[in-house]
Structures are given as C-alpha cells and as structure tokens.
C-alpha cells in the first residue's frame, strides 16, 4: 500500500476531550510539544474541572484540551474545534455543540456502553441514531484496539492497558497531522522509567495508533501544516505560570536580591510555588505558609530583611492578603503580589479564567492605600511582566499587584527564549549610615519619592517601622493632622509618578473606533481586531499593561477616537475606571463565562460599533 495523499492546511484546531482520568491534559500537552517542534505557531487552552476525579463517565468530569496550530502567527487557541476527539459519551455531549457542521469527530466506540450513555444522558447511542450525520465521524474502537495490542506485554494489568488508550489516540492524531514523534517516545520512556513495562505499553499503544492511521481505510488523507514564519530565534513552549516563575528568578538575578516566595496552595496559582520550589540553586526560598495571610506576611518579612519578597495566589487568597498589602503601603517596602485570577465570587469556578479582580486589587484595602497594578497579556509575557513588577516594587519601595489569570497560567504558546544578558539590571541601593547625619527613614528620593531601604544588620540605621501613621522624614509615630494629609498625598504621588511609558496603539489609518483591552484577553481581542480588518473594517487596538498608574498619554489616546470599546471578562471594571478618569464614553463588551473570549465575538462587538 502506498502512502496516503497529503492535504495542506493553514491552521487546525483540535480538541481532545475525555474523562478527568483519561489523561487528556497529558495527551494535549504531548501533541502541543510535537506541534511546537514542527515549527508551527500554536496556542493551547486546557479546560478541566476543579474536581480531581469527578465520577467516571459523568458530564461534570469531562476534561478538555484545545490546541490551535498554524503555518502563520496566531493569537488564540481557536474559537471552535475543527476536530473533536471524544473519548466517551459525556465528552461528546458536552463538546459537540462547539463542533461546526462538517467538523471531524473521532470517538472511542468502546466507551459508548449503555452505562456510559446513560450517565451522559443519552437515551440512544448517537453513533447509531443518525444524530451525527452532519459531521465526519470516525468511529474507532480505541480501547479494544489498545488492550488487544498490549495483551502480550508482561506485567501490565487489563486496567493499565486500558489506561493507555490516550496514547493510542495521540499516536493516531500524530500520524494524521504528520507530527514528529521522537520527543513523545522519549518522554514516555522518561516518565515511566521506574516501570519499564508501563513505558513499553504506552509506547506500543502510541505506535499502534500511529500505524492504525497509516493503514486504516477510515483515514484516507494525511494533513500537513507547514512551519510558521515566526521571528528568527530559539523557541520553546511555555505556560504562563512557568514563565512567571522564571521571570521572578530573573528579577532576583537582575537585582542581586534573594527571592523569597510565600504561598499557600490555591488553584490556579499553585504551580508557581511548585515551579519555584525546584530552583533552590538560584537561591530561591519557597515557604508554603499556614495560610494566605502568613504567606504574604512572610514575604513582607523577607523584604524587610532586604530580599525580593513575593506572594502568589488567586482572588480568594488575595482578599486575605489585603491587610499585609496595606501594611506594605505604610511601611513603603517592596512586595510583589501575584493574583492569578479565576472566576468568582467566593470559590467560584477555580479552574476558569476571569478578570474580576481589577477593582479589588486597586481599591480593596482600608483607607487611601495606593498600589501599582500591571497585568500580563500572554503566557510568555508573564516572564517580562514579573520582571517589571519586581522592578517597580524595588525601585519605588511599594507593593505591586501583578494580574494573571487561569487562561494564561495553564495555556501555552511558543516562546522565544530570551537572552538573559540583554535584560536590564534592576539597580537597588540599600541605605548606609552617614557620619554625623541623623538617619531619616522616611526621607524620600526626589525623583521616585521612594524612601531609603535600611535593612537590619546595617550599623547605625536602627529604626522602627510600623502600621501607625508616621511623621514625614523621621518615621516616628505621628497623629499630627497636617502630617497625615501630607503623608497620604505623598504615598499617592509616589504611585501616580511611576514611570510606565506611553501607551502604544496599533492604529489603522481611518479608524475611529478604538478597542481598549488589558490582561489575558490580548490574544482573542487582537485576533478579533484582525478579523474586522480582514473584512475591510477600520479599527485601532490598544492593550494596557499598566492599570495603575495609567500611561500618561492614555487620555489623549482615548480622546482621539470617536468610540472606545472595552472588552473585559467582568462586568465593566476598566471601562468604569476610564470613564471616571477621562470622561470618555467607553462602551463595554462584558462576558463572564469562565472561558476565554472568542475572536468571533470580539469581531462582532467591534462591527456593531463601526
């Protein structure tokens, strides 16, 4: 039999969906790695329930991994899949509505038992009742073929053989899209190094799936997606939380200050703690605290001692840190607070992204308590955003909030590996005693308004700081009315004066509509803007990194367009701020579904304003 014909595609969106225990995240992750090595641009969206193992076969237990890859620069994991791999009826039921008519559907027929159909709420099997007629269905007995292929491998139980079915599916998909498979085979050997029979079983399942694609008549063509023309350089894949962790280590190196992370496990921020805990050779101390409050407090204690204190959490933990952030405002010490936002209120939807914490981090403290706030825009950008957060915290001696979200945290994209030697150092100077001069702990740098950082151990600078209002210059406790007014103004001026650079605008000649976005929505919002432009519409786009202070030219930017659209995964938090501050009639596009925006809905919202 000759090789099958190869069809060229510009881009593909694949969604793997199965039970939480089916290994869909691993499957998607491996397919992403193979795809990255093919040189495609890609974006991923792991979408999973908070329950670790929801009841098998149930609708809430479905875990998905969507991957978009292309021969050109792309911005999002894709609005809708072209190909859906459904490992059981529940996965089919929850994901089919997203599959466009004519889309490709690959199902494991062995999972369509009466029991599983019932759990998914099907009266009759959709494989038999004709309800899938609008799709290109490939019904494959994945489980049976996997178990059959592994029956001769000694030491592998029937259950273990069955669990390898995800590798069969991965092998099949790897053939279908001509992915390089060596990295996955190596990965399996390493992952199961302690159980060679399991490694062998997974490799066999993978190879069997690959060969099935090659030989089965069910698949008549193979697809090819050529490498994308990205900027020259060396690339790797990275998720937001790993990039953020690396950024914090980089900030520690650039400032020559030891990194101290105080954290309490919370979804979707825990992987930052886990990542940093691995890197003790960089002098990183990670402290898994008894609670969110202690995590923040210990980080502030480390900053007091002259370290780079960082605390990470998600919204439900950040609320508990607010008193420490308030103390850091009063003490005027550096502290980086990272909020990996998730859907709320309260516990909300722990694994799902949202942008609902902006007003909380800006205003969620007692009294006048200004804190700089910035937000990362893509998974890879989390690296640079973390360095910038640390730079401002250290330079201005202030707590800084860095906002990420569940989508950036777990999503991945190709990342051009940065040249560390090209990163700008973070200059930090500790105070030293000057002969004959009285030390003034609240005497400010005229440019930054930062106070001296006098760390314990420095002779002659013994001093006390605290949450009580301090007299300007001396830092002694003061209840003087004029002093309190002055100190309140000074703290506000310091934050307002932080140099954040002018706001760049992706302008289009003739555009009178501006889309203003921030944070993790960059990908879908810009993809939506591109769609509008491709259809002949004229629209400009500005994506904010700094939410406090705003870039100084932001008012001018906003006023130079007739209409401003602010898409946010909240009920209009940034739009409220820009309306209040600049008196512009900004219009919001607000949805909080727990899923990232789709480029299509953004394009529609823009079109409605044109």
């Amino acid at each position, binding site marked *: 039999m000759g090789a099958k014909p190869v069809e060229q595609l510009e881009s593909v969106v694949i969604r793997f969906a199965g039970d939480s225990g089916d290994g869909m995240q691993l499957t998607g992750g491996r397919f992403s790695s193979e795809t990255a090595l093919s040189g495609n641009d890609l974006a991923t969206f792991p979408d999973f329930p908070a329950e670790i193992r929801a009841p098998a076969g149930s609708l809430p237990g479905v875990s998905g991994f969507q991957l978009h890859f292309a021969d050109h620069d792309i911005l999002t994991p894709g609005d809708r899949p072209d190909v859906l791999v459904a490992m059981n009826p529940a996965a089919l039921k929850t994901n089919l509505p997203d599959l466009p008519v004519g889309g490709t559907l690959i199902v494991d027929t062995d999972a369509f038992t009466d029991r599983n159909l019932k759990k998914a709420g099907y009266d009759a099997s959709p494989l038999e009742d004709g309800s899938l007629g609008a799709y290109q269905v490939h019904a494959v007995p994945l489980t049976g073929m996997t178990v059959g292929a592994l029956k001769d491998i000694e030491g592998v139980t029937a259950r273990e053989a069955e669990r390898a079915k995800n590798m069969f599916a991965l092998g099949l998909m790897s053939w279908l899209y001509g992915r390089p498979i060596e990295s996955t085979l190596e990965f399996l050997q390493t992952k199961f190094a302690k159980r060679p029979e399991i490694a062998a079983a997974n490799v066999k399942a993978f190879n069997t799936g690959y060969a099935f694609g090659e030989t089965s008549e069910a698949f008549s063509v193979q697809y090819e997606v050529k490498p994308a023309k990205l900027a020259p350089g060396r690339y790797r894949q990275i998720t937001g939380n790993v990039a953020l962790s690396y950024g914090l280590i980089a900030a520690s190196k650039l400032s020559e200050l030891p990194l101290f992370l105080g954290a309490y496990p919370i979804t979707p921020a825990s992987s930052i703690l886990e990542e940093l805990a691995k890197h003790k050779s960089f*002098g990183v101390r990670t402290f898994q605290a008894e609670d969110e409050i202690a995590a923040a407090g210990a980080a502030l204690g480390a900053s007091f001692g002259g370290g780079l204190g960082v605390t990470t959490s998600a919204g439900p933990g950040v609320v508990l840190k607010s008193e420490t952030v308030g103390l850091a405002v009063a003490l005027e010490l550096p502290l980086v607070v990272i909020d990996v936002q998730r859907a709320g209120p309260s516990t909300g939807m722990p694994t799902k992204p949202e942008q609902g914490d902006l007003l909380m981090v800006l205003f969620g403290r007692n009294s006048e308590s200004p804190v700089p706030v910035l937000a990362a825009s893509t998974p890879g950008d989390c690296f640079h955003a973390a360095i910038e957060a640390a730079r401002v915290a250290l330079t201005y001696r202030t707590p800084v909030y860095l906002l990420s979200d569940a989508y950036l945290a777990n999503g991945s994209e190709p990342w051009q590996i940065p040249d560390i030697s090209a990163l700008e150092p973070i200059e930090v100077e500790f105070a030293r005693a000057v002969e004959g001069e009285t030390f003034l702990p609240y005497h400010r740098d005229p440019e930054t308004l930062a106070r001296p950082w006098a760390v*314990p151990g420095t002779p002659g600078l013994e001093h006390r700081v605290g949450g009580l209002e301090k007299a300007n210059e001396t830092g002694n406790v003061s209840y003087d009315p004029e002093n309190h007014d002055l100190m309140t103004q000074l703290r506000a001026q310091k934050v307002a004066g932080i140099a954040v650079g002018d706001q760049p605008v992706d302008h289009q000649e003739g555009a009178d509509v501006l889309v203003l976005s921030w944070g993790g929505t960059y990908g879908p919002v810009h993809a939506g803007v591109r769609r509008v432009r491709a259809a002949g519409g004229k629209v400009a786009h500005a994506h904010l990194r700094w939410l406090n202070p705003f870039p100084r030219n932001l008012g001018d930017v906003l006023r130079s367009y007739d209409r401003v659209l602010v898409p946010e995964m909240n009920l209009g938090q940034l739009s409220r701020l820009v309306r209040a501050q600049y008196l512009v009639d900004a219009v919001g596009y607000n949805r909080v579904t727990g899923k990232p925006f789709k480029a299509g809905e953004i394009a529609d919202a823009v079109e409605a304003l044109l």
Partner: protein
Amino acid sequence: MSELALTAKDFKSDQEVRWCPGCGDYAILAAVQSFMPELGLAREKIVFISGIGCAARFPYYMQTYGMHSIHGRAPAIATGLAVSRPDLSVWVVSGDGDALSIGGNHLIHALRRNVNLKLLLFNNRIYGLTKGQYSPTSGQGKVSGSTPLGSVDYPFNPLALALGAGATFVARALDIDKPGLTDVLRRAAAHKGAAFVEVFQNCNIYNDGEFDYIREDKDARTYLAQGEAFGETGIVHDESDFATAFALAQLSWEKDGVVPLGVFRDVQRDSYDELVNAQLANAGGDGDLQALVGSGDTWTIG
C-alpha cells in the same frame, strides 16, 4: 561581648514610652533592655517584631531594628525575616489577644516549624488597647466590657497550647520578677529554634490584680529546677520530657495554689531556617538562568 560594651541604656530608643502608668509592660521593657547586652550582638543584628495591642508598642522603645506590624501576624512576618536572614536575632512581642486569638494559627505554626524566633507573650488576660474586653486567656466568669454577665468561654492555657504545637522551648515568667524573667530570657536566647515565653503581666487599668498572688508575695513564686521535684507535687522536673512539662503546665493558682515559673521544656531540634538554608546550600547556588529558560524541547527558526 565585652568589646561591644553595651548597656541597657544603649537599647532605649528616643521615643517616649506611652503605656499607662503602673503597667506591667514597663518592668518587662526594663528587664529586656537590661538583658540585651548579654546577647553579645551589635544592636543592628537584633530585630523586634510585634503585632497589635498594648504589648505591640514594644519595638518602638527598643534601639534595635523593629516592626510594629498587623494584629496577630508578627510570627508570620518574623518567619520570613528569620529564614532569609539567619544572621539576625529575631524577637516577637505579643499579647494574649494578638498571639492566641487573631494570630493563633501563626503562633502554632511558627512553633511547629521551630523557626528561630524568641516569642514573648505578655499575658494580662484582657484586651487593654480596646478598653477592657475579655481575652482568650480570661477565666470563665470574667466580667468585662463585652461580658457583662461573665464570660462563658473556657480559656486557653498558653503553655499547654505551645507544648501541644510542638514547641521546643516553653517557659513562664512574671513581669516584675526581674531575676526570674532575666533567667528565662537568657535560656530562651540560648535556645536554637522557637522559644516561647509566657510573661504574666498586670494590666492595672482593666484587669488589675490578676497575678497578685505572686506579684505581691515573693515567697509564693515557685521556680522549676531541672531534676528536682516541683514543690509539693512530687513531679520531678525534666525539661526534655513532654509529659512532665505538660503536667506542670496544668498547675494553676486557683486549683492547686501553686504556679510554676521558669523553663518547662527545652529540647534541641534542627531549626526551620537551618533546614531551609541547608537545602539551599546543597543546591549549590550556581543556577544557570540562561540554561533554565532554554530548558525542555526547543527549536530554532531562521
């Protein structure tokens, strides 16, 4: 130590002490300032961290580094400092509300981890700064601003709590008993790891006379001595034996007519900062960041 030639006066800051006249805190401050030269450390190597409450004003009066932080959070903040700066001598000053109510969680975890902190709990069994509400150490029946009919709460026994949390050093002293308090401070300072010291402290405004049975009567002050039977109890003291320390911690004036002062428990165990920093030292400190950011599967374009 003699080279530094510091005296108590060197540890007095220029701030006016503003506790109520007659407050037991004055005696504790004087004892601590007198003891400080014995540490043999330069002033810049010493840090006092407090939470909120009357006792929490303590750092302002010490000519060392200091932080007056957040209600209950001092042990957490001090943990971050102590683990990242093992060269410092870090002291935490708190009261019964601060350490046992709002900050109870931080206290037990600092003790459990054996962080190298000296934790002084000034126990006056009342909320003083908020003007006289009952505290978690107030006895049942305590009539206070917030318990006009008497408190129905069962109180904490701070020493038993600390022992239960796994503290490696637990002691008790009395505010105006300078020699006894100094002995305990000396032992606490010498202890590697977390040292927990309860100091009975009289609030002469809202809970006056709480400890008069030993404040007024020096003969009633009974001290623990290693290897010796304690008073009439027949319990032979052993600082390394948990059960002995726990049994002695149960003695109360009301029930037993005797309250032990001194060191209840003192055992050695690796401290948290030692263990954390040993892992760092083993890791080598030579991490290559360029290699780290370029780790995993990579590919080159162009």
